[in-house]
């Protein structure tokens, strides 16, 4: 049943992505509005899908790769729609929608029922860890998209070549939005790391066990901490955008290491 809703959102993410790209290329407002509508409907369908899945599986869904990918896509789109209410950045949609599409598609491919959750994971710490951590991931994902647009626009302004030029937001807007997303992502991710180590303590009796996911997460966390700190001494713009993307790349590797069988000692992070 929930698969139907995932399928609807999957198709509509693609439609929205095409709409945003078309808007960028031809500059008409029609495709943008169509894309926005498609995206809202997709988000609604996805929300229903996630809700049905939660109702059916409860916490156990957090142990399935399918649901993790789907949750991430859903959160990223949610964050983008929230951002969109204040900043009207169609170009961001042109990156976020394909990303959501790819994540949903992968989740579709690896669809499975959930295995029963191990006894020791039946704890309130699990959602308390996953919720902020994933929302943090989503914030960083959107921040990375913003950074990509920034780098593109920066290149255009610097090199005085004018392609998509006028349709991209101003550098100041992008830099500011990047900072906000990273700041929020950092706060949420910090909570996620703390609750994650408490979860580890509860499960394995130790806060820290040198697993790839832990090391990479902490590295990314440190990098974002540096990024936020150095803004006050002038590291903004291109440098901040590059660091945002590097940090996110670390998180992607850490997330995959958890799910794609890099050696680690637990069934869940």
């Amino acid at each position: 049943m929930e698969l139907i809703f995932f399928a609807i959102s999957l198709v509509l993410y693609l439609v929205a992505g095409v709409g945003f790209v078309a808007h960028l290329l031809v500059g008409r407002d029609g495709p943008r509005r169509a894309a926005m509508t498609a995206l809202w409907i997709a988000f609604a369908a996805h929300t229903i899908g996630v809700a049905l899945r939660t109702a059916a599986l409860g916490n156990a869904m957090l142990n399935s790769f399918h649901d993790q990918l789907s949750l991430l896509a859903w959160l990223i789109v949610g964050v983008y729609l929230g951002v969109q209410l204040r900043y009207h950045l169609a170009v961001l949609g042109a990156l976020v929608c394909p990303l959501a599409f790819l994540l949903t598609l992968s989740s579709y491919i690896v669809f499975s029922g959930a295995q029963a959750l191990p006894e020791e994971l039946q704890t309130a710490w699990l959602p308390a860890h996953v919720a902020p951590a994933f929302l943090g991931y989503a914030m960083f994902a959107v921040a990375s998209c913003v950074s990509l647009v920034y780098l593109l626009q920066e290149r255009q302004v610097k090199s005085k070549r004018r392609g998509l030029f006028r349709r991209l937001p101003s550098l100041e807007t992008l830099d500011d939005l990047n900072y906000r997303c990273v700041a929020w992502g950092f706060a949420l991710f910090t909570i996620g790391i703390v609750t994650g180590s408490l979860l580890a303590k509860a499960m394995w009796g130790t806060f820290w066990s040198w697993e790839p996911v832990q090391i990479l997460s902490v590295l990314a966390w440190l990098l974002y901490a540096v990024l936020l700190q150095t803004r006050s001494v002038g590291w903004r713009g291109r440098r901040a955008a590059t660091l945002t993307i590097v940090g996110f790349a670390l998180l992607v590797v850490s997330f995959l290491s958890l799910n794609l069988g890099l050696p680690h000692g637990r069934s869940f992070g």
Partner: protein
Amino acid sequence: MQHDVLIVGLNHRTAEVGVREAVAFADEQLDDVNRTLCGIEGVDEAAVLCTCNRVEVVGSTRTGFGVADRIAEFLRVAQSGAARDLAPHLYNYWGRDAVRHLFRVASSLDSMVVGEPQILGQLKQFYARAASVGATGAVLHRWFHKAFSVAKRVRTETGIAGRAVSVSSAAVELAATIFDRLDGKTAMLIGAGKIGALAARHLLGNGVGSLMVTNRTFDRAVELARDFSATPVPFEQFAKYLPMADIVIGSTASTSYVLTEAAIHEALRERKGRPIFCIDLSVPRNFDPRINAIDNVYLYDIDDLGAVAEENRDERNREAQKAEHIVTEEVESFWRWLGHLEVVPTIVALREKMEAIRRAELQKTLGSLKELGPRERDALEAMTSAIVNKILHTPITRLKQGDRRSEAFYIDAARRLFDIEDPDES
């Protein structure tokens, strides 16, 4: 009689400013001018347009003969100071050409700066002035309102407006790709060059909050600053104030670099990396070109800005082509409407329509009353014909009697009320 439309006048292409000035009407003359124009033999409706780039009489007529000459003569003698020969400057457009001309004017395709947005508002005002003294009727009403909607279509469907085509406006456009908004931003103008002052004025006009002016001769800086209500800064100390500037404009006659890498690095440090937009408008250049390589610093020289403006001009010309297509479409649609604005065909169409209804209804009734004899049938036939004729009598008389102004109005109303609009128009 067939209605026709015409435009007689001159514009920036046919008459230099001296001539246009001499012919132009003052605001308080407009009502009289509109009334007088309507009194000219053969002119049914008229409205005068008078902007700094054009003086034109827009009118409708049914005689055609000599009307344009009489309007031209009126323009020649109306302003006593202009007792000169206007003939070489005047143009007159008839029919489709006139329709097209008004649509092009409204869409700013005929403007000195193609795509400038003011003309549509001006056109609306001049139409309203003419309408307020009763100089316009059904033809001009429809024509002008069509022109307004054509202009709107052109604005929304083409990118003809809103392109920066001068160096100064290109600077503003570029600033908008760097800064979220210009409100509250600070600019610094180095040097007293003309083009630099122009760019500064443009930036201030687009929201830049404050301006600092510096010049080697401090008096000149003070003088310029007074013009802009800006703050003068001594040239020796401008580096000290540089960190406050989001936008720096260079326009000096200096032959060495006024703004160096070191100065920019220093300013950036104090600005905590907030971006600086450097606009170098001087030849030889005032700003070290290497500063463009510094993060968060964007340097454009006069050639770069010129290229932006040039590219915009090309793009605008392409958009103007699209706009011309829209105009052509709309000219045909209006022309069809005007073509149907004739008394006799309208009366014929009206009669045919009524007759068709009468016949259809009569058939229906007779079909269900099979028992009627030929006498009764004839009586019904005569009665229904009489009803139709009686009902149509007054409208048709009115249509035939309409004076030159009300005729078009009645025809238009009749065609709409009885739904005998041109089929491919509705």
